[in-house]
């Protein structure tokens, strides 16, 4: 990765997804120990960071669904050498993007009024939750993506094979599929 020999820095990011891709990543099981020896894990959804660190490889789970995702992925892109869309939500929008068939107002009304047991009102983005974007977008519609690993979720084997290829400097297209 660098001329100074150091372990490549790996981060993972969680946008609008169900965390299934991260679970699949954790399903690497004992292979995680081997991987931990080969990379330096910098940031993940469970590490506490104020600023996203400079990273060699970042795996992104989830679609870009709200303002926070949008701002975050822009910073992540700037600080990442190789950005990877991990899983169908990041790659296609997937289930997260199914609301795109309807207007945002209709979706919010349905969720917070029509079907709510207690109607408090529709969150307006000023408080605790970030404002939703009008349209959910796959990551590559927002920033440049270097590699794609489709699947819902991609299997642990697929993630492992992909990372090993990448770490060993090969970028042969691996056969994945949507769904």
């Amino acid at each position, binding site marked *: 990765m660098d001329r100074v020999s150091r372990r490549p820095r790996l981060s993972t990011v969680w946008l609008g997804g169900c965390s299934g891709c991260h679970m699949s990543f954790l399903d690497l099981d004992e292979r995680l120990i081997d991987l931990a020896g080969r990379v330096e894990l910098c940031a993940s959804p469970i590490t506490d960071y104020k600023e996203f660190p400079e990273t060699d490889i970042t795996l992104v789970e989830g679609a870009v669904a709200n303002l926070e995702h949008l701002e975050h992925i822009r910073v992540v892109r700037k600080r990442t050498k190789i950005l990877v*869309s991990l899983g169908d939500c990041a790659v296609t929008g997937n289930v997260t993007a199914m609301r795109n*068939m309807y207007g945002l107002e209709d979706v919010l009304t349905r969720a917070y009024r029509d079907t709510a047991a207690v109607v408090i009102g529709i969150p307006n983005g000023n408080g605790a939750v970030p404002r939703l974007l009008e349209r959910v977008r796959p990551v590559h519609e927002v920033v440049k993506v270097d590699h*794609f690993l489709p699947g*819902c979720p991609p299997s642990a084997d697929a993630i492992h094979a992909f990372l090993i290829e990448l770490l060993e400097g090969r970028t042969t297209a691996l056969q994945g*599929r*949507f*769904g």
Partner: protein
Amino acid sequence: MSVKTLEIDGKMVTGMAGETIFSVAWEHGIHIPRLCHIGGISDVGACRLCMVEVEGQRKLQAACLTQIEEGMVVRTDTPRLKAHRKLIVELLMAERNHICAVCVANGACELQELARSMGIDHVRLRYRFPVFPVDTSNERFGMDHNRCVLCTRCVRVCDEVEGAHTWDVFGRGAGSRIISDLGEPWGASESCTGCGKCVQVCPTGALFDKGKTVAEMRKDRGFLKYIVTAREKKQWIG
């Protein structure tokens, strides 16, 4: 009938006059991608995935519609053809709402498999997210227009094999839609016999058996060969 000799991908092959490039190629182990073609019913050239290059012709030809000719030189797998096919599959994916993860046909869908076999790991075009209905009025089957690729296999099998002609195509361009009878819900169709042939030939998760959930729908196309052989050879063999 006369025999014709031609070259496909550098291989000398023979076929009968009247046969298409597509079927002669398949008989010789050259598998041209396809979506609207299915053996046993007529061809319409709707999907353009089977396009090939024929030497001496500027335009690409749909292999499923083009008859073989003596001395023809055909190429089925050039970089140009591959690029076109890839784009067609991406266009189909972007045109309607293909959410494979929650689709009945996940893992057994011809469109999904085409994407995989072509190494499509993302769609370069913007998804349209159109609004399309799901018709669940039929007692046993469902029709999800979000997953329809307008191949018209359902239209042709219902007309040519079942003889009911329940389905047809309504509208134009991206707004086209498969309709039953004169646009009534499928369940209200008077012509449909409920045979299920359309469901079995549909390449995607658009037509499915009710009660099937994610990745449970598997299609059985055996009947088509059985019926067509019976018609042509007067023998009931599979």
